[in-house]
């Protein structure tokens, strides 16, 4: 569940418009907390050699199931500092991390619901971390291991920026 920080979007907008320097500073501070998290998550993704051989990208004429490419999947793990569109429940995500590629998402979640059984999911070397919908092998695991430190730091950075902005009296 995200931590609700009311007015965060408005604050980012105001910073961008009236105090670009402070906006840049805040952004860089947040990026500083998110980058180690992303790096860690990327590290949890298996290399092509460690992934199930049939799942690794290969030449086929008709491929419907996503194929895994370690480099591509690692590139798909990143962060976003701009607000998303509201979801069906009306939530807007101001700061988030993502695992965008389909193959990366499969590595992340394969066996989460049905258990690590059968011929596919047991072949992934990584173990799950986290719970329920926040359970996974890479990004979720990195986030779980972080123990909310990055989140706290980002909130603090935003609060600091708000205080500075208000102090400026723009």
């Amino acid at each position, binding site marked *: 569940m995200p931590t609700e920080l009311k007015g965060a979007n408005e604050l980012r907008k105001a910073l961008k418009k009236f105090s670009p320097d402070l906006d840049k500073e805040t952004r860089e501070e947040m990026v500083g907390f998110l980058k180690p998290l992303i790096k860690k998550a990327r590290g949890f993704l298996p290399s092509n050699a460690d992934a199930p051989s049939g799942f690794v990208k290969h030449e086929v004429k008709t491929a419907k199931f996503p194929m895994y490419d370690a480099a591509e999947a690692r590139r798909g793990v990143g962060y976003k500092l701009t607000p998303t569109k*509201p979801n069906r429940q009306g939530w*807007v995500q101001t700061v988030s991390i993502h695992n965008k590629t389909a193959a990366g998402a499969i590595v992340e979640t394969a066996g989460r619901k049905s258990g690590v059984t059968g011929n596919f999911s047991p072949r992934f070397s990584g173990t799950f971390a986290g719970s329920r919908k926040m359970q996974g092998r890479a990004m979720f695991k990195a986030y779980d291991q972080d123990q909310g430190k990055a989140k706290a730091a980002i909130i603090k950075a935003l609060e600091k920026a708000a205080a500075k902005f208000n102090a400026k009296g723009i």
Partner: protein
Amino acid sequence: MAELRIPIIGEFKGKKAFKDADSSIKGLNKSFKKLAGAAGIALGTAAIVNFGKKAAKAFIADEKAASQLAVSVKNLGIAFETPRIEQFISNLSKASGVADDVLRPSMQKLLQTTGSVAKSTELLTQALDISRGSGVDYETVVNDLSMAYVGQTRGLRKYSLGLSQTELKTMKFADVQEKLNKQFSGANAAYLDTYAGKMGVLGTAAGEASEIIGKGLIDALMILSGDTTVDELALSMQTLASNTASVITELAKLGKAVANFATESYNKVDQTSNNITDFIDRITGNSERIAQRNIPRMGGYPSSALGVSPSLIDPNDAARKKAEADAAKRAKELAALQKKTLDAQKKSLALQKASKTLNLEAIGIEAALKGKISETDRLSLQLQKAILDGNATLATQLSDQLDTAIKRNNELRLALLATPKAPNPFSEWSVPKLDFGGNMLGTPVPNFVPPAYAMPETFGQQGGLPAGVVAGVNPTPQINITVELDGQAVGGAIRDSQINDSLSGSFSQTNRFGNKQGTIAI
């Protein structure tokens, strides 16, 4: 599959359902308004206030444009012409259906370019015909005309006058104007005959009416509200909306009544006054005033050209004449400048043409073509020449011919390569194995002594072999040669050489002292 995302910071913006409800309310509101309209429920107060605001805004914009034009005219030194220009714009707007908002900036531009009111009004009127005839919008036409006036005729291409760019460049503005006039004359009148034209005139009239109402409203409301500026009034208008509506209605009623009364009274008074004045003038024999009264009233003063009394001549007449003379002078200057530029261009073209005759590349090609060359080379040279001359047709033709020639050459080369080796015609011949003596070829002749070649005594030791020396037996004879040199002759030759070297700037290395003793050291 949806991408996986961990929200770190989020914000609750409300559910979609809220938005749906909001849009539904808006829709309901619209429907209600429509229903109210259909049922004839009065929503008029807001509409009247809106109209009032729009009218006031139109008036403010119009006044601003008029002020800009007035300033511009003043800066040109012909401020006294402002009423005449305004009158002209107003009349033209009414007659053509082009709003004065468009005419004013156009007039300003033309005045700034020509400096002449007469010329500007002429061009402004002509621009109407051109615009209607060509479909190009009025402001662009005016802009093109003002540019053409100062010699930049590039913009006139779009009117398809059937003139080349060079012709357009070389033509005088008067000629261009005549050409445009010939092509588009009467287009505006024809347009005004159409339904669209009539609607346009009506639209312009409505706009003007709106501006007039706006002015009246502003004046009236300022009196009512006690505001001193329009901004204050605009604020007050919102709060006084409902009251304003009724005030306007009452004002309109009152205005109509007053206007009717005033017109009737004025007409009666004016007529009576005119009759009395006329009666007195006729009795006193004041023919001058009678003549003056009968002149059509165009402005404050009759034109001096009508030959009326000098006391009635417009005091601005002299200034007007001066301004027109200045403008004419400027036009002449512009024409002279244009002619000068054209002359310079002509000279430049002539020089370019002359330089073509000294085109070394072309000369080289011509020279090469006169020599004895192969077909491929000839075609290549001719192609190069055609390219230099810019003759695309000939170049294409020659290029094709060259391709064919090259192809033919290649075919010939391949055919030659494929030709079988010619057989040796002497291959069947048998070489005789015996010499003429009947011996086997290569057999040494026993006791063979080659003949001796003795030199006569007269040659002595100066050349040839000495007597008794047998060729082949004594192959290294001793030869002694003595060369006697005339020291004076050699010295003279060296001196000449030194003089030549000195004159040509070379450094001489001769030992001059050696010459004295009859020996030379170089």
